[in-house]
């Protein structure tokens, strides 16, 4: 499968307009275009042939009846947190672990286990700076296995630093990138 690599674009998967609004402001201020998907089907469609610089995924997104069976087949945690299916899709289409961000209110062991399994970031909603710090930490990283990056604008925020409240990166994170 040949993907269209949109290095200047971020995919935000969330059905809450106020969430997508501040994320859009944030990414646009750093020179990115933002594409939005408001439900699981739109998210899967957006990930079908395209890879993005970042994919930010809310776990609680609307699901059409047609996707209920595929979700159930994946397991009860997918039925409860449909965004996991989008995270799975993003990781299976060549997005690196640092590019796929599960961003959710739910502090769940199931989600923790699954994001460890597919090796992606899992950041809890409540302190938006944690998400921003992850972006600032990784904005200069070139996705492994992608065509060469064009020169990216450097973020205007503070110098990169590690958030003490971020979920620690899995030990095998770098192997998968």
């Amino acid at each position, binding site marked *: 499968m040949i993907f269209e690599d949109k290095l200047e674009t971020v995919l935000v998967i969330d*059905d*809450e*307009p*106020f*969430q997508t*609004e*501040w*994320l859009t*402001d*944030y990414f*646009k*201020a750093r020179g990115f275009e933002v594409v939005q998907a408001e439900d699981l089907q739109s998210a899967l469609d957006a990930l079908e042939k395209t890879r993005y610089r970042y994919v930010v995924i*809310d776990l*609680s*997104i*609307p*699901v*059409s*009846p047609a996707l209920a069976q595929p979700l159930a087949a994946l397991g009860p945690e997918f039925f409860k947190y*449909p965004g996991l299916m989008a995270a799975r899709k993003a990781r299976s289409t060549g997005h690196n672990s640092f590019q796929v961000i599960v961003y959710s*209110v*739910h502090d769940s062991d199931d989600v923790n286990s699954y994001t460890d399994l597919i090796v992606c970031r899992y950041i809890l*909603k*409540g*302190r*938006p*700076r944690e*998400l*921003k710090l992850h972006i600032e930490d990784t904005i200069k990283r070139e996705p492994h296995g992608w065509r060469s990056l064009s020169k990216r604008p450097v973020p*205007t*925020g503070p110098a990169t630093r590690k958030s003490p409240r971020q979920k620690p990166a899995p030990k095998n994170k770098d192997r998968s990138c």
Partner: protein
Amino acid sequence: MNNSVHRDEQVFSLTLMSNFVHQVVNPLNAVCGTLDNIVKGDVPSGSIKQRINASQSQIEYCIELIRNLAFLAEYTRDPEGYRQRHPGKVTVIPQVLIEAALFFQETGRKKRMKIHLADRDTQYKVNGDPDLLRQVFINLFDNGVKYAHPATDIIVKSHIQKKSNALLIEVINSSDPVPLDLWERIFEVGFRGENAQRLVASGTGLGLYICRLIVGIYDGSIKYTGRANESTFTIRLPGAWI
């Protein structure tokens, strides 16, 4: 058996609380993100006022959710005592309708929706606490803004039944109707229909339940009827006057 019922109640309470936390943390997270963006200069200067207005409406929305929960806790603990503590107040219906509608200016704008009061001038009055009855309309408008089709209006019609002197208030939105067998169930606590889950991923399942509790305090009723592309909530409050 008792253990089983107790466990079911606990699971139910935890589910309700989980939904509630999600509904409150999510908008507050967006407010924090927005304010941080403004402080860091990440919002275009022409959009700052709109972002602050949007943040304000999100905070107000959270306050209403917390009020819903507080009402639920207080009322269910002692329904009769609650009735006795809230006697003798009068609600001017158009006034609370307008106040409730103002909550949804910002979210309505995003969905290109408006709340239209068919009659703003007739001063229908009923016995009841305006804070509680405003909450009923806030919950119904919230329901409409979430589940009605974008770029449609929510219409509110009121009239007094001549025979009974009851005030009938219809809140009509353009949404896919709820299946007939669920018309009663949508007022159960924690219930969220398939349509609701398909359109909006998260919800407390509290709003309509609280509407029914509140109108019940004043011996009123609320019912749902649906037909093609239209949902109507009809509230009946006895003893109305102008």
